């Protein structure tokens, strides 16, 4: 075996074992034939020092991802993972869309353009900060894109949804990098973690909403939007009621409470035999993501400052983190049991 073949086989290890068992030898033969040259010296050199090109490696990586997140030829276990990632991505998009819709309504209210609802009294310097800075407008417009992106996703316009989400993530990231340059602003652990999650969400949008994926049931996901908005509006009212001081429950706390509540509802329904296996891995992914968010903001409180939140936010945040950890472990155990019941191969091929 030449060094080139060894290197190519190493790349093929990215593919699931069942797939390699069927296709590896054929893939190696085709690859080696494609790099073969008529000049014996060149062939010897390529055999010793050649490496698979980036485009060849990328094609194998793309195939490996497809096979692990449920394309038509994937194993049942991979199909369940693909479905779970789709549900988790949809839930994350729902939350962003609800925040985006409430942000839009709040912006219109503060701007005084909603009839019969006068805007609250606001100092001029605050109004200037909200509407007078081009970068703020950039952030606001970027943030608003989540709502159409979610609706496009639910209505099956997946390509448009992907690109709108990408633009929203890039706009927010550029804004965050920009404000870091301002004196007094810090690039926090939670803001970095938030960007990481946003990039993972965009990656998931490109990977799991493939042409073999089933259509999204529109009705429940459209009905979920006003419910999610009600949660966000409830928190905005809580912030307004608190006046100049902030309540102990911060934004990550709201998300933690929603996550724990969703997990408890699912686990209760499951005990009663009224829920399927498919939500367990999706909720496990979301619980781990929210737990990371909660831990990151608690770390920020420890490393930097309280950002105006009262001292009670920290113990409350720790309690939320513990509750999230408990539901995350329960969901991971359920997921593990569900996955074990499913075959990890799509069945033996006929040759």
């Amino acid at each position: 075996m030449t060094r080139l073949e060894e290197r190519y086989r190493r790349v093929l290890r990215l593919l699931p074992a069942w797939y390699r068992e069927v296709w590896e030898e054929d893939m190696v033969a085709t690859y080696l034939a494609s790099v073969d040259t008529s000049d014996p010296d060149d062939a010897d050199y390529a055999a010793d020092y050649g490496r698979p090109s980036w485009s060849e490696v990328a094609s194998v990586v793309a195939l490996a991802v497809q096979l692990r997140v449920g394309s038509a030829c994937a194993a049942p276990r991979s199909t369940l993972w693909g479905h779970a990632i789709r549900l988790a991505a949809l839930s994350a998009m729902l939350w962003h869309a609800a925040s985006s819709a409430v942000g839009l309504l709040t912006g219109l209210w503060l701007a005084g353009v909603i009839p019969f609802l006068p805007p609250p009294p606001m100092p001029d310097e605050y109004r200037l900060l909200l509407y007078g800075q081009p970068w703020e407008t950039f952030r606001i417009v970027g943030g608003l894109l989540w709502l159409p992106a979610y609706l496009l996703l639910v209505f099956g316009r997946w390509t448009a949804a992907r690109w709108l989400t990408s633009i929203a993530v890039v706009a927010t990231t550029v804004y965050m990098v920009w404000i870091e340059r301002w004196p007094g602003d810090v690039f926090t652990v939670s803001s970095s973690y938030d960007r990481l999650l946003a990039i993972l969400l965009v990656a998931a949008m490109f990977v799991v909403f493939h042409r073999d994926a089933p259509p999204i049931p529109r009705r429940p996901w459209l009905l979920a939007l006003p419910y999610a908005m009600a949660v966000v509006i409830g928190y905005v009212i809580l912030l307004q009621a608190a006046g100049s001081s902030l309540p102990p429950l911060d934004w990550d706390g709201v998300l933690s409470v929603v996550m724990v509540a969703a997990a408890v509802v699912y686990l209760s329904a499951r005990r009663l035999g009224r829920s399927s296996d498919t939500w367990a891995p999706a909720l496990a992914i979301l619980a781990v993501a929210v737990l990371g968010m909660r831990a990151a903001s608690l770390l920020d409180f420890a490393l930097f400052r309280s950002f105006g939140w009262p001292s009670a936010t920290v113990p409350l945040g720790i309690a939320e983190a513990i509750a999230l950890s408990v539901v995350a472990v329960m969901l991971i155990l359920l997921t593990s049991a569900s996955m074990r019941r499913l075959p990890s191969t799509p069945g033996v091929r006929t040759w």
Partner: protein
Amino acid sequence: MTEPAFFILTALVDEPRHGYGIVGEVSALSDGRVRLKVGTLYGALDRLVGDGLVEPDHDEVQQGRLRRYYRLTESGRRTLAAEAERQAANARAASERLRNWRLANNGGLS
């Protein structure tokens, strides 16, 4: 149907081919525009085999390596014919519109 899948089916119309044979034939059919990478080829082949459009034909050993040949199934031939007809109808509609536009704008001179 994706473009690689369309060209792979087309490459197998006249005779069974092995992986590298398909890569070369697809490149020739598309005037070098579609150059299949190995991961792309086998992703598409696995799907086509799963859909019953392509099936393995026979194996040959060449220079100590096993070469697997693939052939088009009857279902694959019908699917390709339907897809070719659909693409031809699209092309005819576009050509007709362009011809009418040229007649209206240039008096049919270009």
